[in-house]
């Protein structure tokens, strides 16, 4: 009994120290964001602010707020669309494999490794040709397409674990392609949607390169606005850190809210089938 207690205590000790380590950067972010401009120096990075100075937050908020809507308009549809398409692709590739489907999957997957910097110029030209340059829908399209490989991969790996017998039974009952997807696959893949959703939401929310090249001023998402807080030569770190924390709030919220779903989905036994 005592060994069990000791083990338990040790477990918590390890967990708590890891948790504290993980929070160190957050401490730096928080304290810096609350400092006045002249207190923000490298040597004083561990020090508490001598007085709470909210000017960084005020400035950051006023600059970021107008772009918050853009980010939601971009991230939510793009996440939903890429998750839906990825789920459909994953379903087809794992359960309805056809001749050559493995090769196609490989070709698709390869696509996520393309370094985006190298394709900016043709991409901009292409977006202008289809009249989606400098628009949120254009940015959504880009994120959906470049998100397809990873979403497909995640869903395919989820669906591979679903026993084929379940599908066979449904097929014998006369349920078709869409019926199986709707009634068997979708309910079983809630966890998958949560994981993919979290992944896509954070990636799209935090993405900078496409956001900065595909939009100007009024359409810019929040990450570009965050970058714009820093100047060409001078960076005010308190404003920067305050902005970083503010800009991260929605993603944080997603984690905390969906984290529950995550567990609920697991408890429902989605994977165990």
């Amino acid at each position: 009994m005592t060994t069990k207690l000791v083990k338990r205590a040790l477990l918590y000790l390890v967990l708590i120290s890891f948790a504290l380590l993980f929070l160190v950067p957050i401490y730096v972010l928080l304290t810096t964001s609350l400092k006045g401009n002249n207190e923000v120096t490298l040597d004083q990075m561990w020090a508490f602010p001598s007085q709470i100075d909210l000017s960084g937050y005020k400035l950051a908020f006023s600059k970021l707020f107008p772009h918050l809507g853009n980010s939601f308009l971009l991230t939510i549809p793009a996440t939903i669309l890429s998750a839906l398409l990825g789920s459909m692709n994953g379903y087809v590739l794992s359960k309805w494999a056809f001749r050559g489907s493995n090769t196609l999957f490989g070709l698709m997957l390869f696509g996520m490794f393309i370094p985006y910097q190298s394709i900016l110029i043709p991409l901009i030209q292409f977006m202008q040709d289809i009249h989606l340059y400098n628009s949120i829908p254009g940015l959504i399209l880009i994120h959906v397409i470049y998100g397809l490989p990873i979403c497909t991969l995640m869903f395919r790996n989820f669906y591979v674990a679903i026993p084929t017998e379940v599908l066979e039974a449904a097929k014998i009952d006369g349920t078709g392609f869409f019926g199986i997807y709707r009634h068997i696959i979708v309910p079983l893949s809630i966890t998958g949607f949560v994981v993919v959703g979290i992944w896509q939401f954070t990636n799209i929310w935090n993405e900078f390169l496409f956001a900065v090249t595909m939009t100007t001023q009024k359409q810019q998402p929040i990450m570009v606005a965050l970058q714009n807080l820093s100047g060409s030569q001078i960076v005010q770190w308190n404003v920067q850190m305050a902005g970083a924390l503010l800009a991260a709030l929605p993603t944080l919220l997603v984690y905390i809210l969906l984290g529950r779903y995550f567990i609920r989905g697991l408890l429902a036994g989605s994977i165990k089938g």
Partner: protein
Amino acid sequence: MNKRMMLLAVFLVLSLLTAACGSSGTNDKTALENQPQTNSDSNSKDSADSSDADTAKKSVEIFSWWTGAGEEAGLLGLIDLFNQKHPDIEVINAAVAGGAGTNAKAVLASRMQGGDPPGTFQVHGGAELNTGWVAAGKMESLNALYESEGWMDKFPKDLIDMVSHDGTIYSVPVNIHRGNVLFYNKKIFDDNHLTPPTTFEEFFKAADALQAQGIIPLALGDKEPWTATMVFEDALLGVLGPEDYKQLFTGEIAFDDAKVKDALEKTKRMFSYINEDHAARNWQDAAQLVANGQAAMNIMGDWAKGYFTTDLKLQPNVDFGWIATPDTGGSFMVITDTFGLPKGVKDANSVDEWLKVLGSVEGQDIFNPLKGSIPARVDADSSKYDVYGQSTIADFKQSSLTPSLAHGSAAAEGFLTQVNQVMTIFVTKGDVDQAAKSLRDAQVSSGIVK
């Protein structure tokens, strides 16, 4: 349920169609791109005319990397002034920040190559403008504007040369920063009874004395390599003098010349006095070392002055002092932001109006005090500037102006990135011969040869 599936199917078909339409579009585009450059001249005139016809929506899009404290205030001040004068023209402030303008340059390059130029954009005067967009045939001549505004004698001749190519002027300078400034901590110098060094000899002597006291003589933050390149370019200017310095970039003097090697030796010796963690600091973190008394000197462009006074609340001439870098007293390393008129802009007349405001005394005196730079015009009102600004304005009028290498004014960006790479290695290795050879190779491969 079936309805939903139908919807999904419709959506997929639609997306298929868009994809198909798009792919045929690319072909048209390539055809467009191959059209001869000469056409774009007449094109832009056409578009200017047509914009006169529909006066409903005039606009000018201003592309810059001014988003930080001070500089943004300056830009907004200019936009305010412009709005007062031209309430009918909408101003679109398309500023892209980060990486000392690199992000902005990436976006600009993509847009220019993609055939969607902004109305006007920020570009450093000198090679960045001339070997870049001017050589690419993407800029309009501004000679007529200079004539009509009477600007030919309002900007220093050396400066107009920097924004001209074969006698054609391509942009309007709005501000001047000085690149060869040595900032020093006044208290440290007073405490150690040192006078600010004007020559290399004095510099090394002072540095030795400081080092003996356990003070870091020179602060450097070369996390971004351009700061090391600035030290090197100032050493080049100090050793070669302004005339020979300029000849380096016309190819008349080779980069493996004995004088260049001498400058490299001096740079190397200067680097022997720097803080150990230089690679972990950016220029601001290095300037901090001087501000808080850990280091005595810092070689930086004079935006550091703005950082000292505005952000760290230091007093010029009390907490910190400044002097030209060793042996560059009569020279002024120029970093100038300019704006030009790209070809193929939708509403060229509005851009012209913007450039007129930018080049006016009124415009320059609104922008520069806020940005912490000095006006490019010689007839601006110096009472609007602080003590540092006033002394710099005086220097600007008397000194010989040289283009900064580190900020893209002296040579093409391609050469600059290679110099930065050489300096990244040189700071650590200090191999003068190897550095000189690499610099020479870069000079030749960039076509800077006589």
